[in-house]
């Protein structure tokens, strides 16, 4: 069974480019160019994965996430953006996206990332991993909820390897664990990133408005 994908981006050229690059494992069921039509298309087409642009007229990707996930939709989002601003990256993840990749990603990697998100796993680009490490390390304040507000040693190791440019398979080999375990760690980090309500996280992202 192929994975059904909806592409949401306000640049028509970019949508066409992505469509052409994706492998046969995924099927593009539709496209949308702004927030309203994206929300409508998601409701009608019920795709497995939405490739979501962060910057769009009418509130951007975060607005789509808010409106769709607010209704308890099971659809999964993979954020795709040219922006490397920490604010955008952390913002879209905390709004509910399961992963974040930059638009420079190759077709093969993007296809893999889509399949991974469709399976319920998280997709971290090296840059996102760096942001997360930075955000969780940047504060000396004691965590409010130790389970949610700090990363385990293992999670930190996994994130470091992602930041170093390792693929999940390479990480598994490096740490002598299975790929499934790597995925579990990354998903756990994603959960912490989304649920941790420490204010430092948002404040850090805002303060660091740059790459």
């Amino acid at each position: 069974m192929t994975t059904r994908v909806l592409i949401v981006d306000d640049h028509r050229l970019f949508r066409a480019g992505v469509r052409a690059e994706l492998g046969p494992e995924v099927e593009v069921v539709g496209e949308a160019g702004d927030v309203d039509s994206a929300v409508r298309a998601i409701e009608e087409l019920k795709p497995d994965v939405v490739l979501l642009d962060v910057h769009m007229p009418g509130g951007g990707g975060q607005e789509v996430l808010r409106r769709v996930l607010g209704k308890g939709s099971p659809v999964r989002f993979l954020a795709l953006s040219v922006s490397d601003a920490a604010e955008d990256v952390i913002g879209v993840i905390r709004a509910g996206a399961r992963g974040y990749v930059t638009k420079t990603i190759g077709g093969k990697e993007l296809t893999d990332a889509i399949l991974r998100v469709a399976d319920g796993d998280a997709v971290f680009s090296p840059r996102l991993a760096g942001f997360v490490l930075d955000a969780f390390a940047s504060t000396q304040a004691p965590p409010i909820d130790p389970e949610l507000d700090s990363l385990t040693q293992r999670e930190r190791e996994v994130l470091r390897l992602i930041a170093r440019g390792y693929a999940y398979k390479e990480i598994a080999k490096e740490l002598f664990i299975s790929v499934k375990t790597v995925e579990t760690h990354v998903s756990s980090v994603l959960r912490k990133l989304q649920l941790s309500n420490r204010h430092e996280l948002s404040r850090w992202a805002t303060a660091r408005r740059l790459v």
Partner: protein
Amino acid sequence: MPDKPPTQPPTASQAADAPYPRLRRPVEGRLIAGVAQGVAEQLRLDPVVLRLAFVLLTVVQGVGVVAYAALWMFTPSVPHTGPKPARDWAQLTAYAAIGMALTALTMLTVGTLRGFGTWAIAVVGIGGLVLWQQADSLRQRWVSGAVRKVRSSWLRTAFGLLLVVVGAIGFLAASGELAAAQTGLMFTGVVVGGIAVIAAPWITVLVKELQDERRERIRQEERAELAAHVHDSVLHTLTLIQRNAHDPREVLRLARAQERELRNWLYQPRADADRTVAAAVKRVAAEVEDEHGVPIEVVCVGDADLTPRLNALVQAARQAMVNAAKYSEASVVSVYAEVEPEEVTVFVRDRGKGFDLDAVPPDRMGIRESIIGRMERNGGAARIRTAPGEGTEVTLTMKREEP
């Protein structure tokens, strides 16, 4: 809305930067403080006329001295570099002599000039001059800058106004017309008040329009700057890309370089490019990327000030990037720099063809000297992990404190 920058009317004056010649005291050719000369330049008269006038006024109960002193106080002097030119003492003596002669003459004849009236006229004159010299470019830009200008120098303006008013009242009192003038003044006051009431809404609208206009001008300037930037960088790069369309490597290089530049411009307002480890790593990565046309993805966590040892680390990392870009044949190089409380680590990784570390000839300076040697000399360590077909990862570690 008319949006025209304030044009500078061509004046015959020496001051090209001021829209209107501002009363200033020149240093060159002055006799006492340059007041007479300054006023003469302002009025486009010969300084001699002004000097004689001051002398004459001095004779009349010393008014000239007061006027001179007031103008001296309120007038800035012309900026002058170098040694101050000597005064022409002969001329000064001549004026002094004229003054004394006139004084003597007045005393002998008990002139009809004496009286309170002349004082009043003199005071009005001084007040007017103070206001005038205050006005400066104000008359030219009355519509746009007047309000702020007056506010910033309201003390002087008030002083000038006070002098004028006191002088006027003094004149009326001296000529015995004060009582008669009272009704007239009342009438004038009422009329002016009435006009003010009528004009007030219009004036507020005018002021608001002026503010809007200024804001719009600032916005337009920003837009112009943006346009200039886009033109100089983005459009230029696009032209180069079209011209190099046959060379994918060059196109890639141009696009990456432009992307990086634009990102810096958009997201990095700070200019301290080389003060920290993260900034330095990003910079050398950009340089290598430009030189060799291989994209280098940089991720930095944490940051620290760049010390000489950390700079050595960055240079070693640069060499590792160069090697990866030149020899690995990988399509992308990953760089990860992490600053921790005790140490800084940089990983340079490629998924290229790799090599056999033991088979590297001893004269290959790139790895042995520029990477391993440099790190060890500075108290750090370099680890290279590679095998043919496995890609390469160079790990550079440097302690942050001096050993």
